[in-house]
């Protein structure tokens, strides 16, 4: 073992492996040992790829010993939501039904890109069934538990992806976000997350939820690690018809530009009506930290949320129609009834919602003529207790699952890039802020996220300061 503590951040690990300060195998074994020792209490993983991780790590060490050039992410352990294809594993997508599928023979494209960059896959991660979830609970595999308080939800549907990073099992993970499934878990678990622009990262080799709204993206414990991984993931792939034929636009260097020239607004109106006091306080603190003085009241947000709900319900349910016919009893009851309802929706409701999507895109183009970045809450409250069915928003008790995405759904509805940033007081549960930019301006999101990080809006590690 090394005399020094092992590096824990993705960029730190890659640098140490590239310099020969530590072997990739040592890093991989440490991650696997931690997962083996602690994941029973967290429930982040559904599949642990021990042999693959050690094989990938040894290959990196061998390449280095021979003087070969190592990838940017050399030796960085990571894991993926179990809707990403991983060769040798069935792609569960959180379900019991798909767990019976044959093991995949090839990796999802983003897993391949991580491998090419030298990252080391430690396994596949728990998630809400078929990604129709904001809780991280799962009737088949148990809940992913919030490492900050294991009695609480991780948020979902990328619950395991957030738990694995927040627990310190891996420095980075990959998840998916259709209506908030990266941003809500990042908020509840006190992490950074990136939901890139719709069409930025190819979804090739992932199990879909709702093609019209599905995005992929990373979780990490720092903005720099988000940028580090995101830059390795970018690139056009024609196999995903939504993927935009754009050149790779690296963001790591852009972060150093800071806030210069950025016009930053704060979402008001809809985004403040049902947020609890804590969520409003952290939004104000984040706004102060980056000098965001301009209120932005976006028209039509409630309708955007409604349209996203309809498209998701109709399109997601259509995907599962045959499973609903043959194996409805094998669904998680928390998703089954929503899918059954969605399968029946009149086509006109979903088509009108898609037409409204075009209208709301025009609205947001107008908003981004006035500001470059908008700050908004990621969720109306902090992590609820596991098993909790309702929350009180705006003085009313409402169903938790149907309302936890009220602030994220309208944003992903028109594919805007968003960085999730944790904001927290010492000893308290974290809240999350959405840093929202115009399409294809992930650099703007991450510049502001980095400024918030540098300003210390997450004060959990400063309790004794």
């Amino acid at each position, binding site marked *: 073992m090394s005399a020094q503590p092992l590096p824990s951040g993705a960029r730190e690990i890659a640098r140490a492996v590239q310099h020969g300060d530590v072997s990739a195998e040592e890093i991989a074994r440490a991650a696997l040992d931690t997962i083996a020792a602690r994941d029973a209490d967290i429930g982040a993983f559904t599949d642990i790829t021990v042999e693959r991780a050690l094989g990938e790590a040894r290959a990196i060490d061998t390449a280095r010993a021979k003087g070969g050039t190592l990838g940017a992410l050399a030796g960085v352990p990571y894991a993926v939501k179990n809707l990403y294809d991983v060769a040798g594993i069935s792609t569960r997508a959180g379900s019991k039904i798909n767990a019976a599928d044959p093991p995949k023979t090839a990796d999802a494209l983003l897993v391949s890109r991580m491998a090419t960059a030298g990252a080391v896959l430690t396994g596949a991660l728990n998630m809400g069934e078929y990604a129709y979830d904001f809780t991280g609970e799962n009737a088949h595999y148990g809940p992913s538990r919030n490492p900050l308080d294991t009695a609480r939800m991780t948020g979902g549907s990328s619950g395991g992806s957030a738990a694995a990073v927040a627990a310190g099992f891996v420095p980075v993970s990959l998840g998916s976000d259709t209506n908030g499934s990266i941003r809500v878990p990042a908020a509840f678990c006190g992490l950074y997350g990136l939901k890139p622009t719709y069409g930025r990262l190819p979804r090739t080799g992932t199990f879909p939820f709702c093609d019209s709204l599905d995005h992929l993206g990373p979780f990490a414990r720092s903005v720099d690690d988000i940028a580090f991984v995101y830059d390795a993931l970018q690139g056009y792939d024609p196999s995903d018809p939504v993927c935009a034929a754009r050149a790779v636009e690296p963001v790591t260097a852009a972060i150093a530009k800071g806030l210069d020239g950025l016009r930053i607004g704060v979402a008001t109106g809809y985004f403040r009506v049902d947020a609890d006091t804590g969520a409003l306080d952290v939004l104000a603190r984040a706004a102060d930290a980056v000098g965001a003085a301009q209120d932005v009241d976006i028209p039509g947000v409630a309708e955007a949320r409604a349209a996203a709900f309809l498209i998701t319900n109709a399109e997601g349910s259509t995907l599962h129609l045959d499973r609903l016919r043959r194996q409805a009893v094998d669904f998680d009851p928390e998703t089954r009834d929503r899918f059954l*309802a969605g399968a029946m929706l009149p086509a006109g409701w979903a088509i009108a919602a898609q037409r409204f*999507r075009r*209208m709301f895109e025009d609205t947001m183009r107008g908003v981004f003529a006035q500001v470059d970045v908008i700050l908004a809450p990621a969720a109306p409250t902090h992590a609820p207790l596991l098993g909790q069915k309702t929350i009180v928003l*705006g003085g009313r008790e409402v169903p938790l699952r149907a309302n936890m995405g009220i602030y994220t759904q309208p944003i992903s509805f028109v594919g805007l890039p968003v960085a999730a940033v944790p904001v927290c007081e010492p000893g308290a549960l974290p809240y999350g802020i959405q840093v929202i930019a115009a399409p294809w301006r992930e650099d703007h999101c991450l510049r502001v996220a980095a400024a918030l990080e540098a300003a210390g809006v997450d004060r959990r590690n400063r309790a004794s300061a």
Partner: protein
Amino acid sequence: MNKTIMATDKTGAAANALPSDTEAFIDANAAVLGLTIAPEWKANVAMFVDVARGMAARIEATGAATASEAAPVFTPRPLSPHAPK
């Protein structure tokens, strides 16, 4: 029958949706689609249908149904990257 109150729905569109015909809607659609809905699931399915009905009413009120082109635009791709444009 259950009703779901959507937190941001200040117009009460979802809460005011009349569920009286929802059960008939579900029965008819289930028959057409070949879905079997256990009796104990029906109230929950009806709740979600009513939520969606409220959402649809909200969208209909925007005039979106006739006002603009739907977001997913299909773009035919060439057979190969080298095909004549």
